[in-house]
């Protein structure tokens, strides 16, 4: 009788099965991991460059008494695709980059495609010609930004036992994640604009309180070692992870409306959407944080970057990342005022994205901008037509 197994004759360390190599690398730090990957070809292909962490379990719910179950982080990533060769045909009307958001799926290796600004999932129905797989070697691909959300894992019936206020705490409106070296922390906006923080290893969330009587936060971001949260009155607070003091960042003027925070290439921006006041329409205002003085400074130009303001997902794109597919010094946003005009007819996200040009303060719907077709959805022809 033979117990089927290994042939232990002429094999050596280069033949080490991947999971054994992983077991060894798990006992060492990430630098050693990189070194192991540099030893030989088979070790390089057998070991991923970063540790595959098991899903992190965050306490559930955010406030109120603890319940059975936990939160896990769901990651969405915005990518920018560019064709390897410039599309020869109709290059006048086709965009030269494609922005897409992907959400990790339970099935490994599968991703769900989403709209980067408004987040509904795209499906084959919307665009039956989309290839089932995208070969990343066929395109130039840049990762633009990662966004996270909290997902409840556990018995769904628990939701029915909760009262209204508890249910508000069972999901996050918006979260920001700090993952630097061994430090891992999450800041969440939940309920009616409340702010809580959780650090890896903590048994529960802690609420972030400052001494103002009213604060309803609507955006939160992690930037340069600090969390920043923006409230509806225009006050920004920043929270240093090590000291945990929250110091408000002053803003030069009183502001209105839901402002969005975004971080791009080392700069933190605050974007105020257009608003009407005393018969005057105020255009987009963009502020950049002066970190030394802790002050927002109004900027007149975005320089060599374009910014995208979405529902809870705002990001910046540089000229290099989009290969000339987006116009620099512009704010791409969803024009809600005009969206209403479409009534209940299902419209494609592309149709309500507008572009505000900082140069001449003009706003145009993307559908009217030559060379923008396919920036979001439906995808450009060089993605669709590739393998039909």
């Amino acid at each position, binding site marked *: 009788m*033979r117990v089927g197994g290994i*042939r*232990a004759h002429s094999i050596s360390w280069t033949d080490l099965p991947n999971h054994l190599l992983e077991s060894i690398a798990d006992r060492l730090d990430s630098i050693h991991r990189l070194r192991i990957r540099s030893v*030989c070809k088979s070790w390089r292909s057998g070991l991923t460059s970063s540790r595959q962490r098991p899903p992190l379990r965050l306490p559930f719910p955010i406030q109120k008494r603890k319940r059975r179950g936990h939160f896990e982080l769901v990651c969405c990533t915005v990518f920018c695709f560019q064709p390897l060769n410039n599309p020869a045909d109709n290059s006048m009307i086709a965009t030269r980059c494609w922005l897409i958001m992907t959400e990790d799926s339970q099935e490994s290796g599968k991703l769900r495609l989403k709209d980067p600004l408004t987040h509904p999932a795209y499906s084959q129905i919307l665009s039956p010609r989309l290839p089932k797989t995208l070969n990343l070697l066929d395109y130039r691909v840049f990762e633009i930004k990662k966004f996270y959300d909290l997902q409840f894992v556990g018995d769904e019936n628990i939701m029915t036992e909760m009262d209204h206020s508890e249910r508000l705490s069972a999901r996050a409106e918006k979260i920001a994640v700090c993952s630097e070296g061994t430090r891992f922390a999450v800041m969440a906006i939940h309920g009616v604009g409340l702010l809580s923080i959780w650090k890896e290893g903590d048994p529960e969330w802690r609420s972030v309180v400052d001494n103002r009587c009213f604060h309803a936060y609507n955006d939160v971001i992690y930037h340069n070692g600090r969390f920043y949260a923006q409230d509806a009155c225009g006050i920004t607070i920043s929270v240093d992870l090590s000291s945990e003091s929250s110091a408000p960042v002053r803003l030069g003027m009183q502001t209105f409306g839901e402002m969005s925070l975004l971080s791009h290439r080392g700069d933190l921006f605050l974007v105020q959407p257009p608003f009407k006041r005393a018969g005057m329409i105020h255009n987009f205002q963009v502020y950049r944080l002066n970190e030394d003085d802790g002050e927002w400074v109004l900027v007149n130009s975005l320089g060599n970057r374009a910014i995208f303001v979405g529902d809870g997902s705002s990001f910046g794109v540089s000229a290099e990342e989009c290969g000339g597919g987006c116009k620099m010094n512009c704010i791409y946003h969803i024009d809600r005022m005009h969206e209403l005009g479409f009534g209940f007819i299902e419209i494609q996200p592309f149709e309500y994205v507008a572009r505000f040009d900082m140069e001449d303060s003009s706003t145009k719907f993307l559908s009217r901008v030559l060379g923008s077709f396919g920036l979001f959805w439906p995808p450009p022809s060089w993605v669709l037509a590739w393998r039909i």
Partner: protein
Amino acid sequence: MSSSVEAITVLSSDGDEFKITVSAAKLSKPLNWMLEDVCFSDDCDEVPTIEVNSKTLVKVIEYCEKHAPRANSGASDSDAEELKKWDIEFMKMDVKDILFHILMAANYLHMEGLYDLACQTAADLMKGMTVSQIRKIFHIKNDFSSEEQEQLRRQHPGCSFD
């Protein structure tokens, strides 16, 4: 299985016969299943083969026999301390010829304790070493072309390759 059997005979992949006590064999899950399924009485003429070479199997059996009493009955702290010292001595072995095969055998025989020990030993050997030192210790040839080598250097400036 018959309860009268205290030791079983197994064959290594080189065809050599080895005796292993039942309590020691129980440290391995597949061997344990085999004990439950197969009759090991004297009149049973078929001897199971374990796909591990003789040199390695001697060491594996040595480990099992040492650890079996503690695994089966539980041990005091002083025993555990002594066992740890024994493990360290036990793992002082040739990296190329034995350690690799011990690790593969521990994996194949589902022996948790030995597997952890072998992984930790390999990791300790890599700790603080440069890439070329790791190659030397584990007898691995650098099979990257000079262009690939250059690319690695650029990607991981923090790593030393020399």
